[in-house]
């Protein structure tokens, strides 16, 4: 009975193991870098981390729904290019808010394009989103041929603030978790998990599978918009390939957070933890004085190990059993 309860808890909260891993890594990181938890340092790292966190949340929803979105990175590039075109150092608050809404709207439209192609034209998610990623990349170059753009300094300051001694990013993460708790309690979430788990069974049960599937890409688009906003506020300017590398990171973060690539299992808390794990690993590599030219390789090996993790554990279990 108790064991079943533990199993059930672990199954419902897939991020538990990731959380443990994060704590261990943070301890290692702290031993190498003793100012890690100083407010200024923490705020700086969280500020640069927030865009990827937002992006990974969107990716997690797509993956739970049984898909994958390889276009989120270039989508961010496109939306950053759009945002820095819309605002300049003299923009009023109103204009800024409207610009951010416009960027999120554009993200939703981009997500609709992906979602329509995958859900209604029944194209392969990997191929489709890889293809659309070039559309977004192309638009980004059109909008912002040369790196540049400037945003009001007040806006950067706003993003860097730490109300009550806590970095702004943590408030955003709190809001994200609240969003997930609310979403998880709706019928939509049941549909999402059911569709990702077994779309045939979901269809026969009367779930509008195609709409659900499309909606996951729309979420990814919306979160790409938010990520682009955070990235712009963080860097203060834009360039046309600024987000391109974020796609793989977002997927790795989702996996590190315990979300199953085969769909129907996981959550956004895991994705957020996954991003932090990824960042902490990189910190550790950096502070452990790994030579610069091998950092990429070490980084890649760790990512592969993380992706292979669940499979490796299962393999070891089988061997031990014999």
């Amino acid at each position, binding site marked *: 009975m108790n064991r079943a309860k533990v199993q059930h808890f672990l199954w419902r909260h897939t991020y538990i193991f990731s959380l443990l891993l994060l704590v261990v890594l943070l301890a290692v990181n702290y031993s190498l870098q003793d100012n890690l938890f100083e407010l200024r340092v923490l705020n700086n790292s969280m500020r640069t981390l927030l865009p990827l966190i937002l992006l990974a949340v969107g990716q997690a929803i797509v993956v739970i729904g049984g898909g994958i979105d390889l276009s989120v990175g270039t989508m961010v590039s496109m939306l950053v290019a759009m945002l820095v075109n819309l605002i300049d150092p003299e923009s009023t608050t109103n204009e800024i808010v409207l610009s951010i809404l416009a960027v999120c709207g554009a993200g939703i439209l981009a997500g609709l394009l992906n979602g329509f192609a995958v859900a209604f034209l029944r194209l392969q998610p990997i191929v489709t989103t890889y293809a659309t990623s070039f559309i977004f990349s192309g638009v980004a170059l059109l909008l912002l041929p040369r790196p540049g753009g400037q945003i009001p300094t007040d806006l950067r300051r706003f993003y860097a603030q730490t109300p009550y001694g806590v970095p702004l990013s943590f408030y955003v993460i709190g809001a994200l978790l609240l969003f997930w708790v609310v979403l998880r309690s709706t019928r939509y979430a*049941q549909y999402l998990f059911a569709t990702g788990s077994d779309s045939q069974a979901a269809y026969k049960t*009367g779930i509008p599978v195609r709409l659900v599937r499309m909606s996951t890409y729309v979420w990814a688009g919306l979160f790409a918009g938010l990520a682009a906003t955070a990235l712009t506020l963080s860097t203060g300017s834009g360039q046309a390939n600024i987000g391109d590398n974020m796609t793989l990171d977002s997927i790795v973060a989702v996996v590190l957070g315990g979300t199953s690539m085969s769909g129907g299992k996981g959550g956004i808390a895991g994705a957020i933890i996954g991003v932090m794990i990824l960042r902490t690993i990189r910190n550790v590599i950096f502070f452990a004085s790994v030579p610069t030219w091998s950092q990429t390789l070490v980084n890649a090996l760790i990512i592969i190990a993380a992706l292979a993790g669940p499979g490796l554990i299962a393999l070891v279990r089988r061997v031990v059993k014999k």
Partner: protein
Amino acid sequence: MALTLLAEHIVKRYGGVVAVRDGSIELTSGTVVTLVGANGSGKSTLSKVITGVVAPNEGQLLLNGAPIQFSDPHAAKRQGITAVYQDLSLIPAMTVAENIWLTHEPRRAGFSVNRGEMRARTRELLALFEGTVSRKLTPDTLVDTLPPDERQIVEILKAISSNPRLVIFDEATASLDRTQVDRLFELIARWKREGMAIALITHRMDEIFRVADRVTVMRNGRTVGTVDIAETNEREILNMMIEGAASPEKLRMPPVDPDAPVRLEVRNLRAGLLKGVDLTLRDGELLGLGGLQGQGQTDLLLALFGAIPYTGEVILSGKPVHFQHPRHAMKHAVAFVPGDRASEGLLLSRSILENFLLPSWRRFGVLHRIKDARAAATKAASDLSLVYSTLDAPASSLSGGNAQKVVIGKWLLRDPKLLLLNDPTKGVDVGAKAEFYALLRDLAAQGTAILFYSSDDDELLGLCNRVLVLQDGQVRDELAGERLTRANLVAASMGTTDEPR
């Protein structure tokens, strides 16, 4: 709200294949109609048309006299029409409660899912099957961890939970044990009194007479007739189904020659659910394994095939063996025919040829001598009187009975000395069963030792020289000769014999 649903002259084609040619059925509140027919006669497709899973190419549905079209299962559900699907519609990664209430979750203020109420109402539903299921079946159990019979029960409760006006039970009893079937039929009788329209698709003749008011018979995609249960009998229904084909014989097989060489001897075998089983099997003998489902029969077969770990002595052809992998068993001329042909027995998307030769490619060289292989497969197909278009057609193009022949045929190419069968005729139509029985008898006559688990008592009674009835992982009784009767079989499987071995 009473309802009459009429399906008239339904035609459904999948590409070039016609699944239903001319399907008609009438379902009314407060009546139970059983829909019977050989495999591939279009029963499941017709029911999928009624529940909106597939759209018909021709014909129409009339709901209380008015034409209606269902764009998807959701639309049918809104009219109170739903089904218990043969291949189930459960999400393995969700709990029992989540599955049952999927798409009609109880909600607070029409927004957030009320998990407490969902659990409570699930408990009420589970109480309907109380005493026939394990205590591990709770609202919070993951469906993934449930055995097939309990999954089936969850699927039934899922259909019932939406208070439907019409429910189609597609082969809902196939994976249930006897007590569960009895309970289901009590419930069906109750739901019928309460005014539900019920359609029951089944392969079990006795079930037709237990609950049905009417029987609608389909053959080759056509509805060939509907008869009142009071005015018909088994033979008439069978004749309508198979159009003059031979009905399965019910001959009691005599015990085999006690001097025949012993092929298999098992002592104190423990594996999975098994708590120490002894048995002896002679060449040419058809030894049946009976009892309720899930009493360890499958574990016995899997252990002998080296697919699950076990302890105990196994003596095959006079030599002690301990198989750790099916490959070892295959080397010793042991073959295993799984019960679930779609997931375990066949590669559905690959060709019939490949399916036949999968266990035997080694015989045809490193670079396959494809002509020899094809000849061998052709011979096997004709030995089995397989009905097929070409050997290169995918296995999925075969009808149920013919597909089952391939599942067995692929092992016959290896010339097995010991054949293990795990409930091979589940969901196979009556006509195909008869041919299958003949095949088993031939094999036994040629000297193959056969260990045969079946959930169908008729099969055990009509085919086997001897039957071991398992209960709770042990042999409860051994039936042969005069003692091999239905009454003894039932009694032993319920555990009521006076003298357990």
